[in-house]
């Protein structure tokens, strides 16, 4: 450690000889993280069924990735993106496990065996997110307006089926089956589109 190093985290990563080299390394990291954040987030989210803890896990993952960034050395520049996601997801999986051990006392927590299996499966198509997202947008367009609004409103921040049921006077059970039917249609549509795209 250079004893005269600045106390700013971005300037104190070990092995960075000049400030400008450190800065370059930092912006490289930020841009990789920024570009792939959503994929990593999706990965973490899939291991946390209630969605609780995703923000914590992401924050810890991002921090850890930067701390270990030195050890991230992709073979070629072309591989960097793909390798970065995989590398970050390994860290994220570990963070999910430790988050659950520390704070995951609520009911919807996967046992570790499930997390391991899911993580393995999820690792296979980490870069699917963009394609999937495009397919979902296309499929949403195929829905009728009110269907689209219904399905989106239950996913809007702060909304839930129960809340919307209360506000609209539609019975929860009926609303659920409506929303779930829409979700199934969307899911099938997405799968079809992805298959067609090959």
């Amino acid at each position, binding site marked *: 450690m250079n004893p005269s190093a600045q106390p700013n985290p*971005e300037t104190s990563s070990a092995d960075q000889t000049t400030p400008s080299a450190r800065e370059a390394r930092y912006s490289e990291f930020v841009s990789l993280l920024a570009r792939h954040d959503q994929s990593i987030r999706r990965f973490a989210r899939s291991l946390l069924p209630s969605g609780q803890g995703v923000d914590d896990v992401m924050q810890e993952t991002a921090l850890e990735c930067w701390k270990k960034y030195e050890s991230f050395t992709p073979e070629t520049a072309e591989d960097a993106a793909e390798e970065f996601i995989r590398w970050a997801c390994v860290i994220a999986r570990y963070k999910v496990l430790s988050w659950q051990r520390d704070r995951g006392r609520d009911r919807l927590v996967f046992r570790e065996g499930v997390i391991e299996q899911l993580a393995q499966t999820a690792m296979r198509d980490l870069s699917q997110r963009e394609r999937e997202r495009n397919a979902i*947008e296309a499929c949403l367009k195929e829905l009728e307006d*009110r269907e689209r*609004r*219904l399905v989106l409103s239950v996913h809007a921040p702060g909304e839930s089926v129960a809340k919307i049921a209360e506000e609209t006077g539609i019975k929860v059970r009926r609303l659920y089956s409506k929303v779930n039917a829409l979700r199934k249609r969307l899911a099938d549509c997405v799968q079809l589109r992805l298959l067609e795209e090959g």
Partner: protein
Amino acid sequence: MDDHLRNLIFQALDQTISDDDFERLQDALEQHEDVRIEYLRSVGLYESLTEIAAESDELVDRDRSTREAPAQGTSAPTRGVGLDDPAAWGWQRWAIAASILLLASGAAYWFGRINDPSDPIAVDLRPQQVVQPEQVDEPAESLLAGHATLSRSVDLRWSNGSVMYREGDVLPNGRLRFDAGVAEIDFFCGATLIVDGPAELDVESDWSVRVIRGRLRASVPPAARGFIVKAADSEIIDLGTEFAVEVSPDRARVEVIDGEVELRGGRNHGDHLVTGQRQWLKGSQSDSESLEGLSTVRDLQRRREDAQAQQFQQWKTHSQQLSEDPRLIAYYPIAQSQSDRFIPNRAATGSQRDGILVGPVTPADGRFGPASTGLEFDRPGARVRTRIDGEFAAFTFACWVRIDSLEHRYNSLFMGDGYENGEPHWQIHEDGRMMFSIMVDDTPGSGLGPAEDARLHRIYYTDPIWDVSKSGKWLHLAAVYDPQGRQVNQFVNGEQVSSEPIVDQFHVQTLRIGTAEIGNWGQPLRDSPWFAVRNLNGAIDELAIFDVALTPHDIQSLYEQGKPLGY
């Protein structure tokens, strides 16, 4: 993908799934690749829908305004569904967020640790330690505040209103006040004080102490050279090995027993004193008698041994009386054990219930010092096995234990082998909570936990009763299972630390033990060579099991009669 499973997935993501269904879903996820794929797709769908909904505020607002009649809305939210390029926007947002996060959380991470001004260790942490990668994976290092240890004492009587310490306690900075007795205080720099009461001291740091009142002898080995004793207006700086100090309200003096000291401040500023020389720091100089009668390390040791022997003797008498208590299921007063092969059951229930030493159990000093015996279980194979057949109406477990560390997730005190119906498990969780439990229904699948073959039992926890500051100290622990009174009570050093009712679902009327172990868990899985590592890293020197629920008063008296010197 069948609809049922899909619905389970949606319910899990909506958080409306039942416990049983969640278990079913987990099983399916664990066993079937296609379920995992479907689950991951659904998470993707959920997340994308959430993103799209969040990004299209427009839609949400409009939707809210038409919420009253959701079925009638016909205007198409064409662009509102977030079909513009969210990636670009997300990218920028993240570039900013990420850099703020790195700065802010890095700083917060450390500020969380360094903003305690009373902690001299942490204050020196430089912010650049933020990035030393090897620090990240480790759990936060545990810190203790203090400058010295009360290593030994005899007949110490703490003054009214002053903090009381026990042998082995770490002393923080601040006042020590006792009216009688002798205390040996080891400073972390290596200096040792033998203080005769009555005395009042101010522990200032690893390297200095102020004497307000009292007589003491300071031994300062080379490693601690520079240790300062403050008395009256002066500082006595040690340059040699041993000196004595006496301070009363109107007088203060110092005498060098061996070596050299330098005086700083006060009326003798700059003086050096060598072996045999003495100096008044305050008050009359007429009396030049030497400081006599001050306790030495040897005196302390001798007095301590005497007191300890006396206490041990008293306990033996109590122990003899206790062994005649007809309510005992078994009683192992290990402290007076002679054999290195087994520990006799001293209760009337007889030698059938003796404990057999298995594996690397090692004899150690008991709580009355070298004259008494404890058994150490600090290696995984170490155990004392016993067999206690029969049925019981209640349980009281009481033991004297020294815990060096809680190095396993569960650390055994006393465990029934197979943990079958009515059998007890008494252990300490890694976080310091004492746990007492009885198996209610050992039929696989009857349990409430996530495991498929979980069995029904109930663990009664205390709040944490142990942390690293108690390492190596003797504790009296007790757990009382009272089926009739429907209560589980737990105790530390005679004081009740928890009380919990036994609800119907977990009510067990007939208690059993069978084969069981002290300090370890024998054969949790009978048909497998594997065993959970739960040996106690520490020692036990007395264990009693009663077929009755002892009262808090009874437990208090067990503690009082069995407590060692310095308690």
